[in-house]
């Protein structure tokens, strides 16, 4: 009766929880007015109109931009804050370079590697027009080239604030860091009020840092323009550029004109609206048109409902396009800018991208843009494996065996970021796990579902020569979710700590690996249909917004229909380690009483009295001691198998330090397994999860030591070269 009452109460609580949360289908975000603009997917409150010129000889950018920004927070602000990311490589004492040294890389940048950005003009005004159009920033792309922003508006009312700029260091107080610029306003911008901001700047393009910069004639230009931070209800959220974190910004429309030498093929966020001088009508898309004699071309790209803009330029790109089509999902034009030395790998890039668009689309929600650009980065560019809205960099090798998941895994991962980062715009400075972790989990799932290559390859001779180990198959659960890296660094940081405060050397393991592992644990605990609904609900609710961790956890509990906070207390709010294992396993011959052939749970002292040992043995007493070696708690199954094939499954809540199961049965115990389905993928030691009385360790260790013996003989003979 008591149990029935408890179950009833639990069900009632779960229903109440579901009801309460379900009523508020749209959870409050960090900005009160973050609803989409009419006819748009996002609030479009940070809209950029940019003209930039690439000086190939000087390795520099010159640009000007007009931002039409709307305050969508609950409070007025009398300040603007901008990211000037390239100043992370302006001096040795920037926070980024300090943190790189902390991570173990103390090599100072070479003399010509530095990058920087300087704002040469900054002025603001309150726009006079209130008709909803964006001045020079158009809601639809015009194929005519725009020469200046703010078309049709008077050029009056500007207030020059160039001299007011100052550098802020909200995270560490580092006076040498110039990656955040603040500008006080002479007036307060009220909630929902719009402001025009005009900036001019020059940028020294770095040699590659943090996946941006140049090598030879290849440019990957990211985080390159003065970009507004995010004004939340609680104030500006504008972090300095850190070694282990990425970015955070508001959604808007980007209308960007890139002027580059005409021999450069350019790719960028969004779709190309025009090329000036315009090619002949007959000139097909994707063909580099070199039919004019102008020294430079201006490429105009337009993107809506995105929160960043990156571009690339190279004289060597092979420009290939293919259409993604799948029933029930929108068509997407896939554009691949491929390095010539990777010719022949087009299909691998396209197939991986298509698999991402398909499975993420089916599981979480459709990809909303009609284009996506895959950039195959140049060697030594350091720009591989990075995501930007509607554009990402993959990464392949000259010798890329078909049975090894490169470039597939990186392509799927970065394409997947279009969903977890691009569409769901979490704060990567503070909660990087919300995009990287979710995406690592999703990537592994797609790789598994799509049947991508799964063999391990080792690389020799400076990393140029791969050798496929046919015997080693990479698994989604452990390799895809990167258990090894987590295992070695499980206690490095509490995941709830803001990401930019993680220890730089181990941040990735907590951000990527741990999240993927606990998500997969949730998948196995709740079932994929439930987790899929969780993730699609979260995706739908938070697309084009800025969710917080609590928002994700709330969706989990809501969709699962039960309070899952206990799980996040362990996995997210602590650095406790999960480790369940078999402490001891014995099965001894005993004389059993007729009524003792049953499963009983006993204390160790009571075990002796469970049988009578005075007569001929007629059965076995099998004793299993299971222990929680780690601090973290999770319910686990304990399965004991007997020699007659019988299996007994126990469900242990896992809370105590240990539990003892005693079985008096006619058959001898054979083996015991804790968590045999490996639901708890966060368990850092799975070898101790089982024990058997039929030992195979001798056979296995013999086999592997013989393999190793041959390796050592080979090594000795290799060194015999010297004598």
């Amino acid at each position, binding site marked *: 009766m008591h149990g029935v009452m408890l179950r009833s109460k639990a069900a009632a609580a779960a229903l109440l929880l579901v009801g309460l949360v379900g009523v508020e289908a749209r959870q409050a975000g960090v900005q009160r007015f973050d609803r989409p603009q009419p006819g748009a997917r996002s609030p479009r409150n940070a809209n950029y109109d940019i003209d930039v010129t690439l000086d190939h000889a000087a390795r520099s950018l010159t640009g000007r931009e007009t931002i039409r920004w709307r305050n969508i927070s609950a409070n007025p602000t009398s300040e603007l804050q901008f990211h000037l990311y390239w100043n992370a490589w302006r001096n040795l004492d920037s926070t980024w370079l300090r943190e790189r040294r902390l991570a173990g890389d103390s090599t100072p940048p070479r003399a010509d590697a530095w990058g920087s950005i300087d704002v040469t003009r900054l002025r603001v005004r309150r726009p006079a027009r209130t008709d909803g159009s964006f001045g020079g920033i158009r809601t639809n792309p015009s194929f005519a080239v725009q020469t200046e922003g703010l078309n049709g508006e008077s050029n009056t009312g500007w207030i020059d604030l160039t001299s007011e700029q100052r550098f802020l260091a909200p995270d560490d107080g580092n006076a040498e860091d110039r990656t955040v610029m603040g500008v006080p306003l002479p007036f307060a911008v009220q909630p929902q009020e719009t402001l025009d901001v005009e900036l001019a700047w020059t940028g020294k393009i770095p040699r590659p840092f943090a996946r941006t910069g140049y090598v030879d004639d290849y440019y990957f230009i990211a985080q390159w323009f003065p970009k507004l931070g995010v004004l939340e209800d609680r104030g500006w959220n504008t972090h300095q550029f850190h070694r282990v974190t990425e970015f955070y910004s508001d959604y808007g429309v980007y209308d960007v004109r890139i002027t580059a030498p005409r021999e450069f093929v350019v790719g960028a966020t969004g779709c190309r609206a025009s090329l000036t001088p315009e090619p002949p009508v007959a000139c097909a898309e994707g063909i580099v048109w070199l039919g004019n004699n102008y020294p430079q071309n201006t490429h105009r790209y337009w993107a809506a409902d995105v929160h960043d803009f990156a571009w690339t330029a190279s004289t060597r790109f092979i420009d290939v396009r293919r259409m993604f089509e799948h029933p029930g999902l929108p068509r997407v034009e896939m554009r691949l800018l491929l390095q010539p030395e990777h010719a022949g790998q087009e299909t691998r890039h396209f197939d991986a991208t298509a698999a991402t668009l398909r499975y993420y689309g089916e599981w979480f929600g459709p990809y909303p843009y009609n284009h996506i650009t895959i950039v195959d980065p140049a060697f030594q560019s350091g720009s591989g494996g990075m995501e930007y809205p509607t554009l990402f960099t993959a990464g392949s090798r000259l010798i890329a065996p078909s049975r090894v998941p490169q470039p597939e895994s990186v392509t799927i991962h970065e394409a997947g970021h279009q969903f977890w980062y691009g569409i769901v715009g979490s704060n990567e400075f503070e909660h990087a796990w919300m995009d990287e972790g979710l995406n690592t989990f999703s990537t592994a799932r797609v790789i598994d579902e799509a049947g991508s290559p799964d063999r*391990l390859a080792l690389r020799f*001779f400076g990393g140029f020569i791969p050798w496929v180990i046919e015997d080693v198959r990479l698994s989604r659960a*452990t390799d895809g979710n990167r258990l090894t890296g987590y295992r070695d660094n499980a206690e490095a940081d509490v995941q709830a700590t803001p990401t930019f405060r993680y220890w730089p050397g181990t941040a990735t393991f907590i951000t990527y690996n741990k999240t993927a592992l606990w998500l997969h644990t949730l998948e196995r605990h709740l079932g994929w249909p439930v987790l899929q609904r969780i993730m699609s609900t979260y995706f739908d609710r938070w697309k084009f917004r800025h969710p917080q961790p609590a928002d994700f956890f709330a969706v989990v509990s809501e969709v699962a229909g039960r309070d899952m906070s206990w799980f996040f207390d362990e996995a997210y709010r602590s650095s406790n380690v999960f480790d369940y294992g078999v402490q001891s396993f014995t099965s001894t011959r005993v004389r059993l009483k007729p009524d003792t052939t049953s499963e009983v749970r006993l204390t160790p002292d009571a075990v002796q009295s469970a049988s009578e040992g005075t007569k001929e043995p007629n059965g076995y007493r099998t004793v299993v001691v299971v222990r929680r070696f780690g601090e973290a708690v999770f319910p686990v199954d304990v399965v004991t198998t007997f020699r007659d094939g019988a299996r007994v499954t126990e469900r242990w809540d896992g809370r105590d330090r240990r539990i003892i199961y005693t079985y008096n049965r006619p058959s001898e115990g054979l083996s015991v397994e804790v968590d045999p389905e490996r639901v708890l993928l966060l368990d850092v030691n799975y070898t101790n999860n089982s024990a*058997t009385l039929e030992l*195979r360790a001798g056979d296995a260790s013999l086999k*592997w*030591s013989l393999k190793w013996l041959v390796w050592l003989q080979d090594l000795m003979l290799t060194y015999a070269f010297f004598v």
Partner: protein
Amino acid sequence: MTVPAWRDGLRRVFRAPAVVAGVFAFTLFAALPLALALRGALEAHMGRSLMADAAAEAVNYDWWQEFASQASGLATTFSPAIVGFAATLDNLSSVLDAEPEVLPITAALAAYLVAWTFLSGGILDRLARQRPTRTFGFFGASGVFFWRFLRLSVIAGLVYWFLFSYVHAWLLDEGFRRLTRDVAVERDAFLWRIALYMVFGACLVAANITFDYARIRLVVEDRRSALGALRAALRFVGRHPRTVIGLYALNALVFFVLLGVWSLVAPGAGPVGGLMWVGFAVAQLYVLARIVVKLQFIASQTALFQASMAHAAYTAAPAPVWPESPAVEAIAGVSSTTLR
């Protein structure tokens, strides 16, 4: 003269099966203690776990990584690189890329090379005499030449240390980094790497050839001075560059053919049981072939040297008291050197 010397070397190796078998056994038993130590570590880690089942039947990569994350010292070398042909690539790559080995392996290698240095006298003596020297003669020669070889090894060690510490670092670390840091095409960087390997390899081969002939001259001519043997070796190489390099290239070609064959037949992980032993036997055949090739280098170079030094004055002076230098034996008519 290159091909006849190569053929004669092969004949000498095949007519010295005890040497081949002895070196094979020596290599096996030198590696065995560490393999047993590793086996103990593997067995201890698996304990009574069911993970051992999968590890016994094939590759249990989950267990492998779990083992690796707690491994230290010797056990850290237990990686997927030990499977099949990857082991050979791993070893060649680690030498060419000057990757340090863990301390127990370094110690084992040092002991192995010292033992090789000891046995080299007997091996060279046996291959030069072209007749069985029996155990007493073999180890007698080993003992006689050990200290001379050791002195030569000090010089060789210094040369190789210089090559790996400075030339390698200059070419393949700093040089490669500088040459390729602005290279946007991997193929170009790869070609640079190959070119630098060739330059470094040429330095290694030059040193290797010189020290090989110095050892040969120490034995064949019963020289006492390592420095004198080294100078003599340089003179010999300088006077016969084409045949010396041609013979070395021919031997190297055989070595690479062997690696090619091994890459095709090297057994993978496989299950325990009969197949495990078949795989081990195949691997031991490969080890045996590597030893034959190594001896073939020595024997063919000895044959070339003996065939090239046609004047009588190069022999050592003392009367042929056993063990005696093969050159002296040849003069005394103890054995017949048929090489022309």
